[in-house]
């Protein structure tokens, strides 16, 4: 799952050419889709991820590469993580 979302993020140029603010906004939309199952307002590949909300344990898999991308964007050098505590 994390590989796939990362691949889509990189291959589909979902972030390329966007401003930092637009990227943050897109992540908010993605996060809402994977946590609620809500379809995106505009026709978008992001809709493919709506099914993730049925698997709450996997939301962190779907968002990991986004966290990495946003960390890079924000200049945060800490390893990206979706864990609030270790398993």
């Amino acid at each position, binding site marked *: 799952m994390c590989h796939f979302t990362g691949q889509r993020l990189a291959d589909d140029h979902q972030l390329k050419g966007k401003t930092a603010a637009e990227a943050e906004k897109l992540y908010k939309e993605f996060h809402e889709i994977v946590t609620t199952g809500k379809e995106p307002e505009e026709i978008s590949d992001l809709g493919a991820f709506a099914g993730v909300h049925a698997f709450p*344990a*996997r939301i962190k898999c779907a968002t990991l590469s986004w966290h990495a991308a946003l960390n890079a964007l924000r200049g945060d050098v800490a390893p990206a993580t979706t864990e609030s505590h270790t*398993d």
Partner: protein
Amino acid sequence: MPPTWARIREQFPILDQQVNGHPLVYLDNAATTQKPNSVIAALDRFYARDNSNVHRGLHALSMRATDDYEGARARVRAFVNAEASEEIVFTRGTTESINLVAASWGSANLKKGDVILLTEMEHHSNIVPWQLIAKKTGATLRYVPVTGDDGLLDLSGLDRLLTPEVKVFAFTHVSNTLGTINPAAELCARARSVGAITVVDAAQSIGHMAVDVKAMGCDFLAFSGHKMASVTGIGVLYGRRSLLDSMPPYQGGGGMISVVDFYESRWKPSPERFEAGTPNFGDAVALGASCDFLDSLGREEIRLHDGALAKEAHDKLAEIPGIRIIGPKGERGGLVSFAFSGVHAHDVVTFADEDGIALRGGHHCNQPLMKRLGLTSTVRASFYVYNESREVDALVASMRRTIKFFGA
């Protein structure tokens, strides 16, 4: 009425349910086992009739609860064939048992120049406590390597590793990821020949086979109740009495002292020395009940049953193209670990859950081993007394469907 093999599933009420529209197939027993009616009833009976704080109590309930608690200790003593009940210390589980030995024995006996010998297949709970005490004392860590995917300890260089600087050799009896059954008696004897003490992590063996501390010749043995059909929150540290009585307390508090003055105190001997505060007597009673349950089935029979299912799973899974099974090809404990290239273990486990099958995917608290084998995660199916051959078939069918879906 003692449970029998023929009607064993009926003894486990949790198994009678549907998950995602399929009958539950519970194959996550290496993480925790389910509990039979007799264990649940023992817990229920204790809290309904006997509950009271143990030791020193002068009223009827306290004396009854003390008898129950000390009775459970005597039951565990017999279960592992220890010399005396004083050698059985109740803890929260394997992790606390190993931390107790590392902190207490380690602080009194380790110094700069000493070596702690571990193996590459240890669970984090048998690595991290030793790292902590190594930092404090200046001792260093050394590892017995694993041969590779067949998951055996490489004992060819053991003489070179087991030098007189080694003061303690801590190793797992059965690997929670590989299923390897280590030659514990041989390893204990080899350690003894250089004067090292031994600490055996029996978390994955205690509920699956006869574990006899005298035959094994270990100095310490650690295990958890919840992996042997008992409840969470209770575990055991077995220790040789002479060693336990020479060790400083692990925690201070009520119940573990003989005399307390304003500036100094004196300790009771084992086991009280290591059981500061109100002990977990209710769960200890449930642990005693699980010893009865496992003995009623026969522990050699359990070993054969779980081992046979693991072997059957191993052989049937091995026919799936692209699967990488890790662990020994011959005799193994009751589990099988595997990976598919290009499919993450978490995806495999999610798909299996859709079929009502409970598996575990991840590093299994074995990050150093994963690194050694060049893996980030595996899928693990682990078996117990109530599992059946048809559940192995359900597992294999589910894995085939998953792999087909991913085109791996």
